[in-house]
Structures are given as C-alpha cells and as structure tokens.
C-alpha cells in the first residue's frame, strides 16, 4: 500500500522509518506520474519487507518540493535515515527503475 504523504507525515517518516523510503514527488496533472503508478505498486508489493514507498503531491506540499529542489515531476528520491541517497528524475520503466534503486536498499 503506497502511503500518500503530507508535510507532517513526510517529516515524521524521515525520523522514524527503519527501512529506506522511496518518495515519488507527483501531481494529479502529470501524465508520466500516472504512467509509473502501476510500476510503483508492483515494486511496493514485491519489496515491501525492504522498502517503504510513499508519494507526495507537490501541489499540496510545495514546501517539501522546494526543500529538496524538486522542480520536475515525477522525481523519485530514495532516503536512508532521512538523508537523500539517490534521485531519479523523469519516468522510466520497471527494470530500469529497479536497477537504480535495488542495490541501495
């Protein structure tokens, strides 16, 4: 289940999460974001024991997007202990996406 974050739950998760967190910065009008949604669902199902996947609507949470200098969506950021360790900008396919993140989680 991919959790929909707001600024508060984002901040909280950065402090509390024991597993790495992958956050998709997205918005309702963004077509490539819609296109990768099923891929993130699949990854969430298969890797749920190792990785927490969340999404953050940039329209509703502009401060978080600004803090991480996200000015293009979709942007996927992997956080470990609240720190950014990897960023992928733009939509990509599942195999490519796993290649970017799998070794880091």
């Amino acid at each position, binding site marked *: 289940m991919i959790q929909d974050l707001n600024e508060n739950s984002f901040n909280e998760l950065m402090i509390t999460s024991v597993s790495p967190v992958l956050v998709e910065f997205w*918005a309702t*009008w*963004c*077509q*490539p*974001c819609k*296109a*990768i949604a*099923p*891929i993130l669902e699949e990854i969430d199902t298969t890797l749920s024991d190792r990785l927490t996947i969340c999404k953050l609507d*940039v*329209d509703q949470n502009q401060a978080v*997007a600004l803090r991480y*200098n*996200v*000015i*293009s*969506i*979709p*942007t996927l950021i992997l956080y470990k202990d609240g720190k950014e360790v990897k960023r992928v*900008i*733009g*939509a*990509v*396919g*599942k*195999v*490519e996406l796993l290649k970017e993140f799998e070794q880091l989680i």
Partner: protein
Amino acid sequence: MSTEDISDVIIVGSGPAGLTAAIYTARANLNPKIIEGEPSSNSDQPGGQLMLTTEVENFPGFPDGILGPELMNKMRDQAIKFGAEFITKKVTKVELSGKIKRVWLSDAENTELKAHSVIVATGAKSLMLDIEGESRLLGYGVSTCATCDGFFFRNKLVGVVGGGDSALEEAIFLTKFATKVYIIHRRDSFRASKIMQKRAENHEKIEILWNTEVKRVNGDTNLDSVLLYNNALNKEYEFELNGLFVAIGHSPNTEIFKGQILMDENGYIVTTNGTKTNLDGVFACGDVQDHIYKQAITAAGSGCAAAIDAEKWLNSNFS
C-alpha cells in the same frame, strides 16, 4: 514450437497510429498484441506524444477540443473493447527478416514473442538541443514536459525553444504560470499553424526572439541563464531564464530496427505501396515513417492502412 505461440500480428507502439492499427486488426479477429512502451518523460511513452500535450483542437469529431491524454485513453479503450492485448513494455530487440518475426521485451526475463506479421508504430521522441549544461540541468530548469513541470515556474522567466505547433502550444500553456515566456526560434518565421502563430504573437506575456539559438545553459544547481546567439546579427549574449522548455522537433524511434528495416538518411522507415516496408510481413505507420505531416489524424489514418495491409498480407500468405 506450437502454432498457438505465434500471433497473427504484433503492433509495436501505441500512439494514434498503433492504436488505430490495434482497433482495426482486433476487429478483423487477428488478436493483436500491442507492445505499448514504458513510461518516459520524453514523449516516448504509452499513448505517444499526445500524452504530454493539453488541448487537441484539430482532431475531427471534437468541436470543443479534447485533452491529448483523454483522446489516447479513449483510443486504447476502444482497442481493448475489440480484444486487443496490451503489454506495457518496450521492445529491446527484433528479428524481422525471417518467416516468423521475433520480438524481445524489456522485462527482467527478456521475454520473446513471435508473430507472422509486425506493424511498426514506434513514433518519434523529442530532440534535445545537445548543448553544454543541458543534461546536467535536465530536471533542474531544463524540461521536455511543459505540462509536467510548468507549475514549478510560477512568477518565473521561462524560454521555449522551437517554432512548430508544439513549441507554441507549450509557450501558451506556460503563460498560465510564468511572468514572461520567451519563444526562442532560430529562424525569422514560424512553421507552426497560422492560428497558433497568431495566438502566440498576440499574447501579452509572450515575446519572440527571432533568429536566436541557445548555445549553452548556465546554472550551479538550477538553471539561471542561457547563452543566446542571434544569427542575423552574429552576436552572443547572456540571458536570464529560470526554465527552458525544449520543443525543437522529433526524431524517429527506429534504433532497434537498424540493419533490418530500410530507412532514409534521417532514420525514418521507408514505406512503399501503402505501409509496406522492405521486409515481407512488416508494415510501418505514423510518425516513424512520416517526416512531412506528423499529425495525430494522419498517424491514425496510416495506422488503419497498416492494419488493412497486414490483414490482406496474412490472408494471402496463411489462409
């Protein structure tokens, strides 16, 4: 190898050409498999170029316009209704010269599919400027998707590079957010349709920089300026911009077909007698074989033609 593992037709691509071919071949009971591509932010994704656009005003049948993604989703639904099967993967490799066409997918298993005929409708992807700083600042001010990223440029200065309908449409879309939109065009006139030219030229937030090329994009973490070159005055100058949207045209998605399907010097597939390629049983439609019209409706028309050509070819070779 049992015969049921070989499809009648595989369609590669899912823009207006591929989806129209899907509707027609499905209605001809050819049980098409459509390899629709994978997500991308570079107009090279399931649904094709229209997925990254806003209002489509020139597709017949929609007097009030229709959103590009909505039009494509409707075409896809229509193909599914008649039994087309969609696979959300890319094609990584093909072997099309033999009697049985073989196609490999971008999944972890590199799945191989076989078919008697293939319809190539892979379209075209956005060209980049290929200048210093561009790839480093892609996603940090340089963008290929105005509908995705325009929102981040509220009260900012943005540029759109290009002179076709896509460039002008993006510029007009970006006026919703930006303080000012500069259209940067290397020629002294647009090739866009007259109606789009008039809208852009009359828009109070749009300024057109004619005869101007972008030579470099500058910025540490984010784009803050560009180096422009006026080719009429032979003069270079720095210009402040927070966003730069690239819409300078497209190149055909034909890399995987090189060495097999005959192409022209720009990589467009050569078709003769309708949609036939140089290979028996391989047909091509849409922007992948059209460097002249490049419209959704012409792509759809040629997709229909490819489906009919494939059906006739299958009937004369396999019945």
